């Protein structure tokens, strides 16, 4: 059974649909990428699961099932507790994710203490253990530091440690390496992969970077305009993508090993075809709603 399942999830800003019948599954221990360009709705899916959607965005239909239980049917308090215990987030920007006015240690311990009811001493011991695990030298000193005193890579390591601290079963990583240099990115990707494998955590990796997907993930969901275009294995996608848009996206991504290969922007025709597909879907959806 899958750990996380989205069934026909729909969301809107005002009248404008931003998620269109999104269905996807994440099995325990699976590493799945959620891929798309800006505006594809990939970050919104992560936020919908965590319950942190902006106020303007309304879920208009569908289910979010965690271990078979519908999150939206729960009381806000139960939902928070369930998410807090079983799901964690690695955010995009490690600087804004930490409060600049407070020391690092208490910030990452607090989640364990407040949401999961651990004792402070237990929480601190656990966090220090995890900081060792993410290769931070002198964790005791780092816990007393303020965020600005640490480098970007170091902050991201701390947030990774924090995400794994409560042994969640699913981690949602929202573009966690976009703000980092490539050399640091590789270290962080390796770290996420190692931690994921060791703890057996499922990972939903939100990104626009196909390179990162090919190195880290097993399966992937390609989104455009809030609609799932392709749900496939990574091996399949990079050898023979199914959808024309996926193929175009791959062709538009530059590779330094292939300088002669002309860089093909995603052709207008492909975009129009996908947009037509979405319009047809919206129309069918409307007709269905009317019939009901």
């Amino acid at each position, binding site marked *: 059974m899958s750990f996380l399942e989205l069934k026909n999830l729909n969301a809107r800003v005002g009248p404008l649909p931003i998620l269109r019948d999104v269905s996807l599954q994440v099995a325990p221990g699976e590493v799945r990428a959620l891929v798309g360009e800006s505006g594809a709705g990939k970050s919104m899916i992560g936020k919908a699961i965590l319950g942190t959607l902006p106020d303007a965005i309304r879920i208009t239909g569908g289910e979010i099932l965690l271990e078979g239980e519908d999150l939206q049917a729960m009381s806000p308090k139960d939902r928070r507790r369930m998410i807090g215990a079983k799901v964690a987030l690695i955010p995009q920007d490690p600087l804004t994710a930490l409060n600049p006015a407070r020391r690092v240690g208490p910030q990452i311990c607090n989640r364990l203490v407040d949401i999961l009811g651990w004792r402070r001493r237990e929480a601190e011991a656990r966090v220090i253990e995890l900081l060792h695990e993410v290769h931070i030298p002198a964790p005791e000193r780092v816990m007393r530091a303020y965020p600005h005193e640490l480098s970007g890579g170091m902050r991201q390591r701390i947030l990774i440690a924090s995400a794994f601290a409560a042994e969640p079963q699913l981690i949602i990583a929202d573009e966690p390496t976009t703000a980092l240099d490539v050399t640091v990115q590789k270290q962080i990707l390796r770290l996420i992969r190692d931690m994921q494998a060791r703890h057996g955590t499922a990972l939903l990796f939100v990104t626009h970077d196909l390179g990162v997907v090919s190195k880290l993930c097993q399966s992937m969901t390609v989104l455009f305009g809030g609609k799932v275009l392709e749900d496939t294995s990574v091996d399949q996608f990079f*050898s023979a993508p199914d959808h024309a848009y996926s193929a175009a996206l791959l062709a538009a*991504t530059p590779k*330094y*090993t292939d300088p002669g290969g002309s860089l093909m922007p995603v052709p207008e025709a492909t975009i129009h075809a996908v947009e037509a597909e979405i319009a047809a879907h919206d129309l069918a959806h409307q007709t269905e709603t009317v019939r009901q």
Partner: protein
Amino acid sequence: MSEMLFEIRDLRLSFADLAHKPLFGAAPRIEVLKGLNFDIPRGDVIGIVGGSGSGKSTLGRAMVRLLDVDSGQIRFDGTDISQMDEATLRPLRRRIQMIFQDPMSSLNPRHRVATLIAEPLRLHGFDQVAERVDFALSQVGLPLAFRNRYPHELSGGQRQRVGIARAIATEPEFILADEVVSGLDVSSQAQVLNLLEKLVSDMGLTLGFISHDLSVVRRLCKTTLVLHQGKIVEQASTQALFDAPQAQYTRDLLDAIPLPEVTPGWLD
């Protein structure tokens, strides 16, 4: 006319470290550029690559004289512009233009597209400004109807084209492009790269292309300069640099790029 468009000699630049300023007296300095030497021949497309904190953007801004340097020379077409005052520099500005990373913040939100592209033309006393604005728009592949739009009414890729149109309007000899595609989706990124390539060959431009993305540099540039912590680590023709990188740092950089293809064991 000198054969080298830019000659950079022992260029040094430092910033005041205000976080560690004592109560009285001057703040300590942080050295960002530590004595750089290189040339850019006319017609070159030079990639300037490095990680954050390498000094690549600082170098770019020093070359177009947005920043003052501590010492060293920046010879543009044989003339040292490193210590020139703003008034003397102004006529040269027509020949040295820049495209910025974030077109949202580099295009004044209160001006329309036509005004933005016309600004450098007016300042340098061009005639037939309206025709030249239209020509620049057509060169970057934007419809003329965009003349009356505000920057926020455009998509990211379109905005970046306006930035490019503004830079090419005065027919400069050198354009510095600072991370111009890093904020764009891959589809618009490919379009903008293809556009830059076309403009370089059509206009006989010399282009300085600052980027952290080696795949993009490989695609566009003839020569590549690798910066690390304010020093030049390696400079070579792009092909030589990618085929046989000499410096350890360049090798590490190449090794860390995740190519969009499945390579088992890449992370190990």
